[in-house]
């Protein structure tokens, strides 16, 4: 299946580049380590290096805004037209592109999206953990253990390891959580759509949030502070995120210094709270932040929470509709006064009981 995808995407990219419909094609090429394909920016001579397999997890939309940057304070018309760019997009990439278009970070007219019906991407960490479990003692060497990985036609992942020979995994077992929960595996609104089936849409994964909310405030705080105590403030979560395109991040402002740059627990926690808050109504649950985190912090719990809240309160989900206004870019007269403290009501303020 993935070989067919590779061939198809190479052919499409080649045609587009040769016909001059795009100047640059963004896709994936084989990575230097097993289980990872890396983003590739190719022109006609290098289209043969493009691949499409189950390791193309990165969200390619993150690279787009810089191609459409304008000079700040520009008065005259743009001298050069916007570059024409082709990009391979899964469901989540496509949602990011739509979100960026709404925020004028991407010029949709000069972007040519090649939609790939997504079958889910493999989670490197799950494979590593499974290999480490075979070894028995710790997962430190797991990354060294894996020598080669390939998919078979029957939906299996075969991993060649240093000490255990070839291990075979069911593809479903080692898929990323975000893919298992994904509600939009099919990129709608793509200019060209690859053939093939997308996986069955998931349920969104809100059950975990509801479960977590049942815990007490102390337990939730313990979890949050323990997770964030590992944060080294490398900002990889921000860099990997397609919607984090601000030229100057609040975390780095110095004239109005919001937070320190160090990994003081309070600063790390506030950075994450505000980063997640900034995703309200924009996060497409691609889990780029979660994958990028070198400390394996459970960021997806918190981004998922904000996605759920936005959907629950405003009925908005950033999907493929380019017309729908993001909820914080507008306002409504909806009844959302549930969180307001009213001194005329006898009951003292409690949780919002979400």
């Amino acid at each position, binding site marked *: 299946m993935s070989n067919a995808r590779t061939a198809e995407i190479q052919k499409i990219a080649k045609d587009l580049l040769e016909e001059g419909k795009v100047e640059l094609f963004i896709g994936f090429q084989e990575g230097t380590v097993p289980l990872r394909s890396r983003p590739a920016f190719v022109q006609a001579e290098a289209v043969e290096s493009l691949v499409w397999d189950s390791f193309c997890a990165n969200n390619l939309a993150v690279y787009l805004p810089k191609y459409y940057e304008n000079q700040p304070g520009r008065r005259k018309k743009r001298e050069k037209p916007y570059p024409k760019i082709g990009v391979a997009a899964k469901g989540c990439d496509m949602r990011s592109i739509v979100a960026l278009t709404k925020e004028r970070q991407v010029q949709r007219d000069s972007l040519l999206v090649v939609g790939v019906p997504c079958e889910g991407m493999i989670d490197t960490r799950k494979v590593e953990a499974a290999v480490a479990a075979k070894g028995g003692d710790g997962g430190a060497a797991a990354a060294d253990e894996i020598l080669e990985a390939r998919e078979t036609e029957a939906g299996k992942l075969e991993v060649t390891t240093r000490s255990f020979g070839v291990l075979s995994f069911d593809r479903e077992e080692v898929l990323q959580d975000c893919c298992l929960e994904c509600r939009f595996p099919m990129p709608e609104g793509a200019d060209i759509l690859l053939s093939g089936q997308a996986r069955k849409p998931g349920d969104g994964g809100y059950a975990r949030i509801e479960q977590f909310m049942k815990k007490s405030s102390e337990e939730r705080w313990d979890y949050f502070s323990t997770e964030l105590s590992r944060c080294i403030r490398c900002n990889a979560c921000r860099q990997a995120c397609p919607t984090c395109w601000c030229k100057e991040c609040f975390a780095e402002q110095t004239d109005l210094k919001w937070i320190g740059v160090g990994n003081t627990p309070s600063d790390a926690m506030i950075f994450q709270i505000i980063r997640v808050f900034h995703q309200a109504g924009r996060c497409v649950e691609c889990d780029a932040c979660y994958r990028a985190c070198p400390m394996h912090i459970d960021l997806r719990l918190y981004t998922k929470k904000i996605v759920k809240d936005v959907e629950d309160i405003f009925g908005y989900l950033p999907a493929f509709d380019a017309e729908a206004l993001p909820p914080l870019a507008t306002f409504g007269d909806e009844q959302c*006064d549930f969180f307001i403290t009213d001194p005329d009501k006898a009951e003292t303020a409690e949780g919002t009981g979400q």
Partner: protein
Amino acid sequence: MDVPAAKSIHAKELLTAQNDEWHPKIVAFLCNWCSYAGADLAGVSRLQYGPNVRIIRVPCSARVNPQYIVKALQNGADGVLVSGCHPGDCHYISGNLVARRKFALTKMLLEFVGVEPERVQFSWVSASEGGRFADLMNRVIADVRRVGPAKRLVKHLP
């Protein structure tokens, strides 16, 4: 002027609290046009409420960035209150409706993270509601006293 007296929930205890007791510090962001004028009215009407609140005047409740709230908590505020005009009465027509969307998400996210819900509160007080303002202050002070001094999110320098 005939202004109804504040329904002092805990006002008396708060006012007579001993000096060695713990006094919460509460930061209140009040919109210039309604809540700040409401606080003013509470003052000129000589309504008594707890002295624990530090008022910051903002042009509109929509001016309050959620960053202000977490920053206040980081800097050691025991509670944060944000108050603006009632929905529909905004001086800038729709400012508080925009703010309400942000605040709903902020409140729910902070709660999810594990910040006590009593610490961050939002309310609407109009310029004519001096009594409501005093009640609100007493309510917030009582809530914050119940949960005690802020420990979560506070930045301790090494």
